[in-house]
């Protein structure tokens, strides 16, 4: 159920004093827990918990024909589902626009930063390549599924191996773990979403806090800079506010990276 109006006012007032209900600072993330190997059947997988929010991400590889304009490159496809399992607010039926946006935003960050070395996924030029599928599922929505999904995608990709390809039979042997890891660049890329509440900014909102967010900017970053960006929701931002958002995103990215670093080696 959506947060009551009076509670929303309290959250906003407290934030204007630089404080949050769970005693975090506005630019502080909740505790992040990372697990890999969540599904043995995936080529790579991860479970990310940020506070009570939980997301699982799986990476699967499959054989395919390359696209005509990139005959020697594998392809990336990212889907996301905000599941009805994870929140009473999500109804049954086809994934809504939030799920579609989530998948595309995560995809963009990974694609534009060239994190996956797609040219190394070519088996036979013009005929056979590996396609990489990233699938994201929300398990419990207590806010900030966006960033949890982004971190999950990177960790799952890092966890991924290329399955064995039997050239003679022309098929993939999935249940034998491949020795080769998925070729990834050193550009660990994941998003930080900065939200605007009233005149203040915060990161990693709880579900309650997310109910009063009027604008959010999701910035996919790595050590080299910015790879992707998406502003969401229907508020507007002044250019000075936007500058502040970039600063906060950069600073928070570095802090979160420290927390997840060992899973990205």
């Amino acid at each position: 159920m959506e947060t009551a109006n009076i509670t929303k006012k309290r959250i906003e007032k407290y934030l204007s004093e630089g404080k949050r209900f769970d005693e975090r600072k506005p630019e502080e993330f909740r505790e992040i827990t990372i697990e890999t190997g969540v599904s043995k059947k995936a080529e790579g997988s991860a479970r990310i918990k940020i506070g009570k929010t939980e997301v699982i991400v799986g990476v699967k590889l499959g054989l395919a024909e390359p696209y005509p304009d990139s005959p020697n490159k594998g392809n990336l496809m990212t889907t996301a589902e905000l599941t009805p399992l994870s929140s009473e607010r999500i109804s049954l039926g086809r994934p809504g626009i939030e799920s579609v946006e989530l998948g595309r935003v995560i995809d963009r960050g990974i694609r534009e930063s060239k994190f996956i070395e797609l040219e190394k996924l070519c088996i036979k030029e013009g005929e056979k390549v590996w396609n990489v599928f990233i699938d994201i599922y929300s398990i419990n929505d207590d806010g900030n599924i966006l960033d949890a999904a982004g971190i999950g995608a990177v960790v799952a990709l890092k966890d991924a191996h290329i399955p064995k390809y039997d050239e003679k039979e022309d098929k993939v042997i999935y249940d034998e773990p491949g020795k080769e890891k998925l070729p990834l660049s050193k550009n660990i890329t994941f998003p930080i979403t900065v939200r605007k509440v009233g005149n203040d900014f915060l990161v990693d909102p709880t579900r309650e806090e997310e109910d009063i967010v009027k604008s959010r900017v999701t910035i996919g970053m790595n050590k080299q800079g910015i790879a992707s960006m998406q502003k969401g929701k229907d508020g507007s931002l002044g250019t000075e506010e936007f500058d502040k958002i970039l600063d906060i995103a950069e600073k928070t990215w570095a802090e979160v990276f420290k927390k997840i670093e060992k899973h990205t080696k």
Partner: protein
Amino acid sequence: MAYKRLDGRSNDEMRPIKAKVNVVPNADGSAMFSIGDTIAIAAVYGPKKMHPQHQQDPEKGVLRCTYNMNSFSVSDRIRPGPSRRSMEISKITEWALSPVVMLKKYPGSVVDVHINIIQADAGTRCAGINAASMALAHAGIPMKELVSSISVGKMDKTIVLDLDKYEDSDFEEGEGSTDIPISMTGDGKLTHIQLDGKIDKKQLKEGIKMAKKACEEIHEIQKKALKETIKK
């Protein structure tokens, strides 16, 4: 020659089971049930007003189950979204649980049960039903009994309990494999049975007897999981 199981289990032995309750904090009730390498989670929301309105039952609440396999739960990736198989299993799950759930007090409402298979190694619908049963109790839904579910099967001529993926999909010797998922209430009544293969009446009865004993064991595990969650 008698059938020997690849993982060394005896014919009436189940794979190791883990059960846990309260795995989805947002849900009114939730649980995880794993057997061997098959992992299922279930989350229950309700009772709440049923939408769309035309699906409301003015006499009692409606149980609505949705079974979904994660795309990466299997070796050959499944395209995300419902399939005919998942729709059928959703309905089977509903029929397996409906006889114990008491929803006369909630006319016009719905109890949603969402089942998600995280890792699949045969017996997924049974694991889903086991998780759902715990989640429903955890959610405070009035129930006469819990429901426990397990598959029995016939490998060539031998009756076995809890088929793993090899036994379910790849075994082809002799008479091949027959797969029989079964669900029973805590007081031994059958609420779900399906069969794929070839079996005679005598062997089927033997299989059901084996399943009944296994369901009693599973029931104890489900009960323990529900009671343990309180001690924190």
